[in-house]
């Protein structure tokens, strides 16, 4: 199985995408992160799920996580509602967040090349791009895991 077989078209977010839409893209597609595109629509960065989660948590609670304990249920809900006041750009500008550039693979790269790259770059998505730079979609971590599981199961069947 090659990278081209695993690549899929994902909804991309941009710097201006509001936080609610970004979270929706994350949950609807069962992803472990969202891919941020630049102004030309080219995938540029990956924000992981836990980085995205920061949009729902005030900065002072990130600084002092013990403060999360003092909110009651209504207070916690009020905080989460503030999600709509944020955009993906807020995360990209946050000095505590280090979004990772989307690593690129070739369409003919194997699953082990994809897995090695994702581990090394600690990213849940890689961009499949051929040698002339034409993008062929994104391989996500869940998709790669499914492929690995499929290969492992097939191996069990043979032995």
């Amino acid at each position: 199985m090659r990278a081209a077989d695993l690549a899929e078209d994902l909804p991309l977010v941009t710097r201006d995408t509001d936080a609610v839409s970004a979270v929706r893209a994350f949950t609807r597609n069962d992803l472990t992160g969202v891919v941020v595109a630049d102004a030309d629509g080219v995938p540029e960065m990956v924000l992981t799920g836990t980085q995205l989660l920061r949009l729902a948590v005030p900065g002072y609670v990130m600084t002092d996580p013990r403060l999360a304990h003092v909110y009651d249920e209504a207070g916690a809900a009020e905080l989460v509602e503030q999600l709509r006041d944020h955009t993906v750009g807020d995360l990209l500008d946050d000095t505590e967040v280090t979004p990772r550039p989307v690593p690129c693979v070739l369409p003919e790269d194997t699953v082990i090349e994809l897995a090695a790259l994702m581990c090394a770059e600690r990213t849940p998505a890689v961009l499949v791009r051929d040698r002339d730079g034409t993008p062929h979609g994104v391989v996500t971590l869940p998709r790669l895991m499914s492929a690995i599981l499929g290969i492992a199961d097939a191996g069990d069947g043979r032995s």
Partner: protein
Amino acid sequence: MTAQTWAAVAVFAVTYLLIATERVHRVMAALGGAAAMVLIGATDGESAFFSEAEGIDWNVIFLLLGMMIIVGVLQQTGIFEFLAVWAAKRARGRPFRVMVLLVLITAMASALLDNVTTVLLIAPVTLLVCERLGTPPVPFLVAEALASNIGGTATLVGDPPNIIIASRAGLSFNDFLVHLAPIVVLLMVVFIGLCRVLFRSAFRYDPQRVTRVMALEEREAITDPRLLWRALAVLAMVLVAFVLHPVTHIEPAVVALLGAGLAVLVSGLPSRDYLADVEWETLVFFMGLFVMVGSLVRLGVIEDLGTAAAEALDGRYLLASTGLLFGSAVLSAVVDNIPYVATVSPLVGDLVGSGPAGPQASSLWWALALGADLGGNATAVGASANVVVVGIAARNGHPISFWQFTRYGLVVAAITVTLCWPYLWLRYFVFGG
């Protein structure tokens, strides 16, 4: 002066300039300066490592290290978060009352702990309370930074310059309590009055918002009550040991290290938790600084300056006290007060020792402490606590400009430092002589 002395003075001046202008990192500057002193023969290993006066003052280093570890344990308890939320609820969400209670908590905590740690702990919970109240947090944060510098002035362990002064002058924890705490209490009363005037536009009261504050559950901040009681017990024992120094003769640095060891033992926390709060950079900076200043002491530069100053002053201690108080305040407003006090304290020691011992001579130490500690309030860069608060505010979307901070800080510094002068005059010259 010999060529070597001139070279040492040049090394010191260049290094000081680099530290003051922040052209290079202060640790690099201090270590570079110390290395240059060794290379030109102004000091050697024996003096640098084993002479309290001419090298690294390990009393200061280990006192700081011990207190940092104790704070590292204490801050895992959630006590600061508890106190701040409790205060906001106790004030029934009235913004001025909330500010008063928060600055009092900050000042008292700063008297016992490092100022930077105190504001690091109190600023996030202040942002939370202000968000609940719908009031602008900047006045509260600025007030807390100013309060931490005032409160830290009260004790030996409250501010690093006090630790240096105590070690150089041989002053005890009780000396600081007796000589500085009374004026600090008075200054806090005045400061609270100033808060009412300076930050009056921030005290918007919205009764509907108050319910959001009253709904906060402060007890939830304390996740491990056993850890809290153990940490507080250790802190109490350390403070009692500081106070009992005249009886036990155990040096503050030893008390702090024993306290740190006990805190680590009874807390059972992993080392990464309590060591995360040790400011290794600050400790190394101190070491470099002590080697540099010690080199000047070793070459007799400080003694020559002290003799010249003593001759010029000719026993006029009130003039010297006045100059030290206001001069230190002005210098501390623009440069870090730690290198300033490290440099000036041997000189003050010579001045104090040049005449008959007594309250008038010892007033110089208190003038130095008050000027250096309180002067830091004048600008956004005058004290580490100010820099930390400005940074936290910016990260949370409430930027505080240099001039915005300075507008408040300058007024507070000018008034508090000026109030110290009649205190020094009355206590050490009118009634002390």
